[in-house]
């Protein structure tokens, strides 16, 4: 409903208001970012406040997982990868950031029901804060990985390290897209978040985290590309390429085995491009779905 056309342009009247609305719209987006950072901060504080070790706990979980997998896949079922812990950690941290981001986001709207029903604010910040939380944890974990890599004599200081930038960018876009989508769906169908958690357990194994990517190449041959239709596999293998330095290894029988998904660059660029197209489309779909469903959130919660 616009103001009546004949109303005089009083100070503080509709004309001023229009100008005000424009300047506020500009301020709005920066406020959203601030709100997002406030929410992520809140989650971090709430999660680690009162614990003596604080942020160290954000490392404890992946480090324990790492320890367990390391023992099993070095001594029980040897993966045959030199400096396995670095290879494993690179993949595990990337995947955990993805899965945790999506899981956090999936419960973010339902978990903040009190807020959604009582305060008007851009609801999109809720799933984004869930994703942001996982990304902040990754940002804390990555330096540890790099230090461990350095200590282990893994040389990642080459041009290939730059691959980590598009890899993390794709990780962010994909996690945001999927997280936003499931957060909206979870309001209507509360089963969504449970389903997501189970699905992540399965999804984990479809990525070259515990095993050499080369195994897949050996098994699939010409259909190797099918495996990388999974954008998470692209992210994981690109992060591995960026940090891990031995594309090939030689086993006890003297066979030359491929560890990384590919020793070159083009392979990654191509798969990253596919991943970005897919994630971009998913992001559009997620935003549309979220925007369509969010008007009913307060009612459905």
């Amino acid at each position, binding site marked *: *409903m616009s*103001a*009546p056309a004949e*109303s005089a342009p*009083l100070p*503080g*009247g*509709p004309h001023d*208001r229009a100008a*005000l*609305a424009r300047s*506020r719209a500009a*301020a*709005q987006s*920066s*406020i959203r970012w*601030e*709100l997002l950072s*406030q*929410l992520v*901060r*809140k989650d971090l*504080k*709430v999660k680690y*406040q*009162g614990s003596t070790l604080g942020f160290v706990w954000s490392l404890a979980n992946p480090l324990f997982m790492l320890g367990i997998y390391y023992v099993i896949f070095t001594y029980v079922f040897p993966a045959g990868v030199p400096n396995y812990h670095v290879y494993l950690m690179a993949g595990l941290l990337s995947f955990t950031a993805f899965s945790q981001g999506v899981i956090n986001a999936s419960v973010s709207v339902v978990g903040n029901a*009190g*807020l*959604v*029903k*009582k*305060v*008007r*604010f851009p609801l999109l910040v809720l799933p984004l804060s869930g994703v942001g939380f996982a990304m902040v944890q990754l940002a804390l974990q990555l330096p540890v990985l790099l230090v461990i890599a350095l200590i282990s004599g893994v040389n990642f200081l080459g041009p290939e390290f730059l691959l980590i930038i598009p890899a993390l960018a794709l990780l962010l876009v994909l996690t945001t897209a999927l997280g936003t989508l499931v957060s909206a769906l979870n309001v*209507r*169908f*509360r*089963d969504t978040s449970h389903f997501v958690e189970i699905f992540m357990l399965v999804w984990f194994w479809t990525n070259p985290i515990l095993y050499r990517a080369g195994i897949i190449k050996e098994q699939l041959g010409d259909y190797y590309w099918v495996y990388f239709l999974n954008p998470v596999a692209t992210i994981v293998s690109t992060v591995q390429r960026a940090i891990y330095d031995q594309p090939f290894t030689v086993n006890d029988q003297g066979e030359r085995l491929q560890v990384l998904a590919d020793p070159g660059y083009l392979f990654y660029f191509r798969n990253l491009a596919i991943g970005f197209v897919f994630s971009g489309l998913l992001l559009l779909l997620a935003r549309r779905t979220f925007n369509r469903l969010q*008007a*009913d959130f*307060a*009612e*459905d919660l």
Partner: protein
Amino acid sequence: MPQPVISAPVISAKGVSKRFLTHSSKATQLKERIVKGRGAGTEEFWALRDVDVTVGDGETVGLIGPNGAGKSTLLKVLAGILRPTSGQVEVQGRIASLLELGAGFNGELTGRENVYLNAALLGLSRKEVDRLLDSIIEFSEQGPRIDDPVKHYSSGEYVKLAFSIAVHVDPDVLLIDEVLAVGDEAFARKCLGKIEQFQQAGKTILFVTHSLDLVTTLCTRGIVVDHGRVQYDGDPAFAVGTLRKILGTDRPVGQPLAPVEIGGVVVHSAVASTTPGGPASSRLRAGDPLHLRVTCEVLASDEVYPGEVGVVVMGAGDIPVFALRTPAGEGLPPVPGRYDVDFAIDAVPPLNGAFILGVQVDHAETHLPITARRFDDAIWVETGVLPGLLDVPALTTVTEAS
């Protein structure tokens, strides 16, 4: 009553309806959706039906109604939290909705941290909060407690901090849901002071409340909602009267005023009219002739000697405004029968709002009351737009002080 000039509607709701689907058992689980199908076990409930509300710049509107009338739903629809099933809502400017104080608080965080978080939710930037922080803390009266986790706050302290943040958001439109009666009396008064500041700054305020005194003292307009529809929209005093009628708390006509029922005389009615003995006029204007007719019945009885009849016109809070009384010895005769006692006033004084008529019949010899009854909202006078029982014209000039 001269309508306040509505320059541009700040809040405009047209034909707003809101339907809720109540599930007999919540079919939110995927399984039940599939098993039961979409429409099974759902019932419709219309919380709002064709509501039109237009609020102009600087108005303070009290939204009142019985429980479950749809007030909170309307507020949520206006706040943009709920989507109307049909109809349109437009709100200009920055809205702050206080539907629940401290809705965004996290118990683990300190008061200070919660200020930043809550203010961000309400749309303030970090820089703005930095600037306002001292003022927020001061208004909330928390002092050094601001650095304690809010889970250790008492409910009063919690609410003080929340209200303090909300009023510092400096919105154009403030939507408040039953949260004004918070904290101790001193703080409640401070809150009202803040609301008055908002009014003076020309902000638009819309609040839901059950304390009807607040509506008459604070609002420029009252809207009564019942069964999802607007039942009355206009003068706050009339709005309160309308609601009391709906609630049945307007005290049934002719309810005893005081426990002095001796008997022998019954007051049947007290009617205000513009003509002698004419029909009841619900709305009067200052200057109208006023005829009050009190109808009494003297019952056959040996003991009682009815005497003078008095009428007290009372404003909100039972404040007597003026009284009328039959001259000594000219009251009801001690003869059984029905009598009309008429009081004629040339011109209605410049009253403002709804008034109560208190009728009392005294004993002819002891002059103690025999019976007394009150008639709520018996006189409704529309005069000014300013608050107050009286509308007093004044000549105002503004000159520079020497």
